[in-house]
């Protein structure tokens, strides 16, 4: 699966959590820009995991701060 397609699918999954309608780009940060709290993170991660049938452990989540890093991580996890 290529990066552009993964990026588009993740962007679609962010929509319901993007309460302020922030424009999402690779540099968009989940905590600082999208203002995700821990509960939102859990629901959002669950949505990504279900969509791609992967596990993103908390250890891996700790390394992911922005949208671009998440897309890269998912691409890598999907192999």
């Amino acid at each position, binding site marked *: 699966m290529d990066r552009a397609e993964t990026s588009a699918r993740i962007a679609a999954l962010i929509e319901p959590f993007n309460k302020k309608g922030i424009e999402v780009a690779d540099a968009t940060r989940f905590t600082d820009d999208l203002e995700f*709290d821990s509960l939102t993170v*859990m629901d959002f991660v*669950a949505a990504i995991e*279900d969509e791609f*049938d992967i*596990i993103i*452990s908390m*250890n891996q989540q700790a390394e992911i701060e922005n949208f671009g890093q998440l897309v890269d991580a998912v691409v890598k996890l999907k192999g």
Partner: protein
Amino acid sequence: MSDTTDLFSKFDPLIKMRSDLLATGVTDPFGLVMERVISPTVAMCNGRETILLGTYNYMGMTFDPDVIAAGKQALDDFGSGTTGSRVLNGTYAGHKAVEEALCDFYDMKHAMVFSTGYQANLGIISTIAGKGDYIVLDIDSHASIWDGCKMGDAEVVPFKHNDIEAMEKRLKRIPEGAGKLVVLEGVYSMLGDIAPLKEMIAVAKKYGAMVLVDEAHSMGFIGPNGRGVAEEQGCLDDVDFVIGTFSKSVGTVGGFCVSNHPKFEIMRLVCRPYVFTASLPPSVVATATTSIRKLMTAAEKRAHLWDSSRTLHKGLTDAGFQLGTTEPQSAIISVIMPDLERGAMMWEALLREGLYVNLARPPATPANMTLLRCSLCAEHSAEQVQQIIGMFTRAGQAVSII
């Protein structure tokens, strides 16, 4: 010369939240001092006799005459402390005796006692799940479970509270051959709800996971023999590790893990929070042993505590309060407050009425709720429970919550 970065600046938001709260004039809910403790259910607070409804002293063992006598005897016979690790000079006859009492209580082969319940979770979880293993745990797990995960090297995968399907999806995706540990609690202490352990453990076993259940808030009370929610639901045999504490129903301090795992004893050499700390004082293990043995036959107390839980739950529901569970599921009745400020006002109004409960606030609470957490004691009389309902009703009206 560069300026010093104040390492405390990260606490500024919390310092502000706290000073804003205190500026409203409320008594500091986290600064209560009990001047004198009269019984498991009554203490003097601010010079006033106060009913205790937030102590986790579920079985009221703290003033049991046999328990007190055992502690005094051990102080005389063995001194005030061991000054040593369990694996060096800190194992006395009393430490072996309390582990035997736990084996008898749970009908399990192995028991290992830690200096606190916090250390029991910290030690067992961080030690048994290592690099490349996966810990699958409920998102509402206690801080000691999270800290155990953080201290170890395993991959940590949380799932939505009590959600069997969410748990199964995560177990299914774990790479083949990886070690798996599912961590659950019998009673979740914030809302006082229980886990569907029977179903969850069946799923965990289907995927070849080992199961650890923290029964801190159910020991002594839930289940025919007080062994906890897993016993109540008939699945204790499928639990690999039960974690518990002496600081609730047992009425002192300490933590433990019981297990039937054939290699369990090696934990005593590899579990750092067990090895690198001093063992419990002789008086503490003596009181714990006596208390645990008495809890084995405390069926009448358990029945009375269930009666109190049902009465309080119904009384508060009828008064118009919103509770954490629609049915009483444990000895914890959690009252949901609209926000922290009114929660603190209500907490203070109750204290003025002569009632102490726990104020719980984010981040310790699920979904950022502010809770007034009530934990009942088997020593609360039916009359005290009625008094408590009256106090809640008056306080709730005074601060316009009901």
